């Protein structure tokens, strides 16, 4: 078996920025975290169009908005905690409301930040961003999808939030993968349960399929990387086919993918649903993979919950 390539989704950001650098209308901003978010990779190619706002995220979002009013496509980066948490109201009022062409590419999202601990582990960003009118919310599953999504975000005219991670995770897609905003993808097909996953939980969902086979359960795995606008048709079709659904995300189960799927299912196709995610608690310091296991963000826990979902049918 070929060795699995592991890369962080933030590496996909660096790769996308390299391709975008020749476009004179692209500006990249960061708040003193360019080395960590990978936005600073842009500096090599277009130093004059890399703007470091310093440790002042609120102002960075406003400056990004102002640049966008002058025809620029602006990428603004920091850790998810600060880009979304600290600067939420600036993102709402200065970017989403005036519908400006700013792409918020935030890294270090979720509990897989690891050792830095709870202050830096943002498990609320999808919930916050998805409540904003005009905001597209994307959570890529691997480095390939991250790059493709960011290139697509650059082509799209309007505000976009892209959630990126610090942890190196297995590559799922190959270079021929085509990303489309709002389109989910079926990565494995099965009849008994649908596992709808996002971000690094997509790979865990795929692994859980193997575990479920031992229980005689065949699972369909759906990657929902665009949380908003969400692929309702695919969710409903999958729920109809398998009769129950499990969601899996490295985010609070309140307000994220699980909630978004619950909204679709409860209105259009009520079936048993179990949400796997961070269960309304703060994280803690520790190596990322150990934290993911401890907080139930694993193939094993998805499989366990899939068994419960099937039993509820």
């Amino acid at each position, binding site marked *: 078996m070929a060795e699995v390539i592991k890369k962080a989704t933030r590496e996909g950001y660096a790769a996308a920025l390299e391709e975008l650098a020749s476009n004179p209308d692209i*500006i990249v901003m960061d708040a003193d975290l360019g080395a960590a978010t990978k936005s600073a990779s842009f500096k090599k190619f277009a130093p*004059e*169009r890399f*703007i470091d*706002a*310093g440790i*002042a995220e*609120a*102002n*960075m*979002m*406003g*400056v*990004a*908005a*102002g*640049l*966008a*009013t*002058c*025809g*620029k496509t602006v990428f603004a980066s920091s850790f998810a905690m600060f880009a979304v948490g600290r600067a939420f*109201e*600036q993102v709402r*009022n*200065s970017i989403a*409301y*005036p519908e*400006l062409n700013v792409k918020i590419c935030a890294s270090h999202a979720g509990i897989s930040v690891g050792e830095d601990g709870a202050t830096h582990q943002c498990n609320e960003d999808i919930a916050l961003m998805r409540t904003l009118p005009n905001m597209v919310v994307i959570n890529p599953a691997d480095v390939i999808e991250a790059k493709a999504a960011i290139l697509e975000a650059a082509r799209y005219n309007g505000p976009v939030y892209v959630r990126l991670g610090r942890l190196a995770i297995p590559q799922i897609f190959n270079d021929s993968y085509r990303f489309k905003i709002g389109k989910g993808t079926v990565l494995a097909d099965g009849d008994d349960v649908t596992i709808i996953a996002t971000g690094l939980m997509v790979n865990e969902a795929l692994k859980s399929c193997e575990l479920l086979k031992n229980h005689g359960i065949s699972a369909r795995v759906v990657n929902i990387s665009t949380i908003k606008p969400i692929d309702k048709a695919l969710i409903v079709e999958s729920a109809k086919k398998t009769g129950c659904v499990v969601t899996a995300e490295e985010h609070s189960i309140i307000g994220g993918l699980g909630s978004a799927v619950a909204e679709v299912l409860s209105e259009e196709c009520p079936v048993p649903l179990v949400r796997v995610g961070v269960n309304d608690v703060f994280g803690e310091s520790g190596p990322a993979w150990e934290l993911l296991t401890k907080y139930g963000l694993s193939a094993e826990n998805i499989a366990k919950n899939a068994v419960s979902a099937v039993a509820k049918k």
Partner: protein
Amino acid sequence: MDKSVLKELEKRACKVRIDVIEGTFNAGCGHPGGSLSAADVLTYLYFNEMRVYPSNERAENRDRFVLSKGHAAPALYGILAQKGFISQEEIKTLRKVGSTLQGHPSIKTPGIDMSTGSLGQGVSAAAGMALAGKLDKKDYRVYALLGDGEIEEGEVWEAAMFAAAKKLDNLVVIVDNNNLQIDGTVEEVNSPYPIDEKFEAFGFNVINIDGHSFEDMEKAFAAAREEKGRPTAIIMKTVKGKGVSFMEDVCSWHGKATDAEQYITAIGELKLRLAELEA
């Protein structure tokens, strides 16, 4: 300043004040106090300083204005009507359902460069516009108007630090120092004084003026144009409610409209003043 120019500006500012009273009275709410203190500088900017083009409102080389104290929107709408960006009839639709004239400015309204209203955010956006001008080697200038209470917001100082660090000499920040905010005088609530020294410490060229003197404005904005390598802050002493006797320097006129009787008095005073100027 040429006497005829001065008189023209005074007439226009008086019309803006009438629109402030008309708009807020018809809405039954809004912010007359801070609109009236800002009416003169808005008039100066749009009729004697900025290059704007109502027939090509998004022209790339236009000067930009950001009303960071977005609650003074009624005064800005008065200006936009006189400039022809919006119609005079629209003034009475202020704050009504379906109107282009939102309670606080929206970028979707003709002539408005940035949505504002949540205090403290406008300088950041203005700095972004100024930075775009520098990157594109364009010579347009960017102006932002702030309230003196508004500068209690931390983002203003993040933006000030940024504008000076990036040497945005095409940016002018104007502070409408009417000394009043909702809960009282700015000193009582959370004093921002000394405002001029704070902006100086942040690396600005600072000019103190009388915010109801067009001659002071002419000198200050001319000096700002000459300044190289750093942004300018113009701190204007103003009177909240300026031009309507019973509103002047009265805190409670920050955020309420006149009743019918007060409306008649206010409009009467302003129309009398306009008649004197037109005589």
